[in-house]
């Protein structure tokens, strides 16, 4: 299968603190990956580098053979952890804003996703609950016809109904031309979505394994497998 993202000896330090410590891994087109690891294992830094939001690092990152930058931003859709909307906007303004920004933004799809996720165009962003903000974030990111979707904690602060809706629109967006990388602590939500799991520990990729292989070989769920690997980790 075609490789969409290749990461070689990736190192990132913030001052004296090491966020990524020689991470190596590959991602193939047409698959959904879980990027899993405890807090401070480097997940967000990893995604930010791939999204070309952090440009200074050591090692090599190639997206479809090209280093992250302006050219790759056009085909990489990144959903950041936490808040990133402009509070004075309405839902409709936010959609317009993204539409202006990205050439691959699909307005028809955005309309469909707003409906699907029950987002009112006239609602001020300020008035949205945490769950509704999570929905809006996902709607604008998944409205892009991107090749690579990097989703950082897409399930944070969402109720079970929103979770199902988010999974539905993810599955609706994903196809053989695209690749999704989901960084999340909510492993139980993504058990049935993942092709492969990459485990990050202190800035290194320590395991790369197919989800079905975990279940087949050890009779464990991904969550149990994760716990077994990380149970004895000390918090940093």
């Amino acid at each position: 299968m075609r490789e969409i993202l290749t990461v070689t000896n990736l190192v990132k330090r913030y001052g004296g603190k090491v966020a990524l410590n020689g991470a190596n891994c590959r991602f193939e087109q047409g698959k959904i990956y879980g990027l899993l690891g405890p807090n401070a294992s480097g997940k967000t830094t990893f995604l930010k580098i791939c999204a070309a939001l952090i440009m200074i690092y050591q090692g090599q990152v190639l997206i479809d053979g090209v280093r992250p930058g302006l050219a790759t931003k056009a085909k990489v859709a990144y959903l950041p952890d936490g808040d990133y909307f402009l509070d004075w906007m309405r839902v409709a303004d936010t959609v317009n804003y993204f539409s202006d920004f990205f050439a691959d933004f699909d307005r028809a799809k955005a309309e469909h996703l707003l409906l699907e996720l029950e987002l009112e165009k006239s609602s001020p962003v300020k008035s949205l609950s945490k769950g509704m903000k999570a929905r809006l974030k996902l709607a604008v990111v998944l409205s892009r016809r991107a090749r690579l979707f990097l989703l950082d904690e897409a399930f944070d602060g969402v109720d079970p109904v929103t979770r199902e809706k988010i999974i539905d629109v993810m599955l609706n967006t994903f196809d053989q031309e695209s690749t999704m990388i989901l960084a999340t602590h909510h492993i139980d939500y993504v058990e049935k979505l993942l092709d492969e799991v990459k485990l990050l520990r202190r800035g290194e990729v320590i395991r790369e394994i197919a989800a079905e292989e975990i279940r087949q070989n050890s009779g464990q769920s991904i969550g149990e497998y994760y716990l077994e690997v990380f149970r004895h980790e000390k918090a940093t």
Partner: protein
Amino acid sequence: MRYNDREPIYLQIMNEVKAQIAYGKLTPGMQLPTIKEQAAIMRVNPNTVARVYALLEQERIITKQKGLGTFVSASEYLARELREKIAESVTSRFVSELQRLGFGPAEILQQLQQFLARAPGGENSR
């Protein structure tokens, strides 16, 4: 469908499709949803569904027709065969549980006969 997160999802979906044929919910020649549709219905990774469809096709339980879609195999024997296989595995579980309790063949038969006598047409008539 409810899944067990400790068993391969593709096996669970395969068994579910087979059970649906055995119980007559899916009938010979019936069209199946596309991979993408099925994945959305079951809320699972579409690659898992693709794997299920490929394996079921290898077992001649479903057939792909170019440009038309995927269908339950038209074989009349299929449902009977799958029903027998399910019966076989249910029986095997039943017998091995009783064997674990120390029952021999005669006692197992007796147990079954007594149960059937007590529950005429109840549990077993469906």
